[in-house]
């Protein structure tokens, strides 16, 4: 894997929060490269800054210091509007609580990010069906989130994340709210996305089973990224 050029390059990244007149360092001097087609699991105790780091990589939060290059683009230099366009084209999000829009069907939820593209209705339909096919839920496309199990909802969310064919997928505890069987299904699905579709995934997780599918596991502790450690997969 090592000879692929990094798709994510992070250099000397720092971020702190201000609470009153007290400064709370959350991320300290993080440097990290992630190659294209890698599946990285980010682990660490609660409050160690995993979500914050993920948000920075995904372009929904601003760093204090450092550079984040994704596909060669330094996203720390983009404006809010540029970032929004950049996210629409380059990032797929998967959240712990699926975060589907409850009043839209599975199909409509997956179609949402495509509304920002110039695709025709017909093309959008094809893309959505293809994405639902990948997560094996084509037969549930007219169901509302409330009519689906947690695992199925998370798979719809994954379909929504991949439908725009983004450069990276970010997932924040995607199995955190699922039972073992559904969690395994979701992890296996993510593994397939990497293997079969060549996606790059950055996943925050507490799930020990996640170590079985991830290529690389990095530990974050009190805002400091621990030494490199590759799984023996």
């Amino acid at each position, binding site marked *: 894997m090592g000879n692929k050029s990094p798709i994510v390059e992070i250099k000397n990244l720092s971020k702190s929060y201000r609470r009153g007149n007290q400064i709370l360092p959350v991320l300290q001097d993080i440097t990290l490269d992630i190659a294209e087609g890698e599946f990285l699991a980010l682990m660490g105790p609660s409050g160690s800054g995993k979500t*914050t780091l993920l948000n920075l990589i995904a372009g929904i939060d601003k760093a204090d210091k450092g550079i984040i290059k994704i596909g060669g683009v330094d996203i720390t230099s983009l404006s809010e*509007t540029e970032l929004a366009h950049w996210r629409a*084209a380059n990032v797929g999000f998967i959240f*712990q*609580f699926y*975060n589907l829009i409850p009043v*839209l069907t599975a199909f409509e939820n997956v*179609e949402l990010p495509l509304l*920002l593209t110039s695709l025709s209705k017909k093309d959008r339909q094809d893309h959505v069906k293809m994405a639902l096919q990948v997560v094996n839920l084509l037969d549930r496309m007219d169901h509302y989130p409330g009519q689906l199990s947690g695992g199925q909802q998370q798979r719809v969310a994954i379909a929504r994340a991949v439908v725009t064919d983004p450069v990276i997928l970010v997932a924040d505890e995607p199995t955190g709210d699922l039972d073992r069987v559904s969690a395994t299904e979701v992890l296996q699905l993510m593994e397939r996305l990497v293997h079969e579709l060549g996606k790059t995934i950055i996943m925050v997780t507490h799930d020990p089973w996640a170590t079985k599918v991830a290529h690389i596991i990095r530990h974050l502790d009190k805002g400091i990224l621990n030494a490199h450690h590759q799984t023996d997969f």
Partner: protein
Amino acid sequence: MHIIKLIFKNAFRHKLRTFLTILGITIAILSFGLLRTVISAWYAGVEASSATRLVSRNSISLVFSLPISYKDKIRQIEGVKIVSYGNWFGGIYIDEKNFFANYAVDPKTYFELYPEIILSPEQKDAFVRDRKAFVAGRKLIAKYGWKIGDTITLKGTIFPGNWDFVLRGIYKGRDQTVDETAFIFHWEYLNEALKKTAPLRTDQVGFYMIGVTKPSLAASVAADIDKTFKNSLAETLTETEKAFQLGFISMTEAIVIAIQLVSFVVIFIIMAVMANTMAMTARERIGEYAIFKTMGFGGWHIAGLIFGESLFITMIGCIIGIVLTFPAAKAFGTELSTYFPIFIVEDKTICLDILASFTVALVAAIFPTWRAIKIRIADGLRRIG
């Protein structure tokens, strides 16, 4: 899947809340429409007044009269086309609560001067020929079930005694702004009777109604009339019909202002209700808006969702409210026809309804939208779960 569909679905996520909000807006728009209609009914006389008609009365007060001999002098003034005259009679039909306008006029000139009062030629002839005759508007006729040939007795208040009149005609208005509840009879009949009972009060008129040849002359003719009778025993005060009607209303201006105020208070209250609904809605969806933003949707999209929902809910209430205003105004108008002979929902009122609803919708959406756009995505996402 379109934004419109999402707005529609969002609006009905909390069915009870949305239903109650729509109900509130419906009631507010209905009340607003009715109050506005009361105000226009108040000014109906002013609206219906003509720019080519003047009213001349005793300069001291409406209670004092003018001699009939002024008629010929007024007619000689340049720009005057027709001179008619009349007396407010103030008669009571059976009981005081049966209030309607009744006055004595000169039939020939009266109909010439008021073309908006429409009477068939046969009925007009019958009225002119019979000194004891009267004509009345069709609404008044309908209210009391009178028929042509019926003798109706009014009890005089200004002119004591019981006065009998025979119904010879039923008039209707040329358009909706004409009062169809008036009772009109011969000035001659009144005058002849007074010769026997109160000779000092004969040959007097309460007011002259003067038609001028063209509107631009109204002001100068009015001034000429007043100049003619300057320093005479009964000086005149001449003004346009509009000014004359406004003079009447100014006596009750405080009430009109109060009604105006209440009508806007109603809108203000519903604005607060709607703002509360939208604030609750947007607060619940802060996480959802964050999800939209992660996908690359911008402030305009979020604003579209919130403003769209606010507009959608208010417009449903507005439309139902407007639709209900018509039957409500009709019922109201029938009940109060003697006080408000003209009680119609004007186009202007409907426009105000719509304008008020738009304002309510926009104002209610501003703060929630601002908050939803301003909140950082990362913070919005932390609200979920």
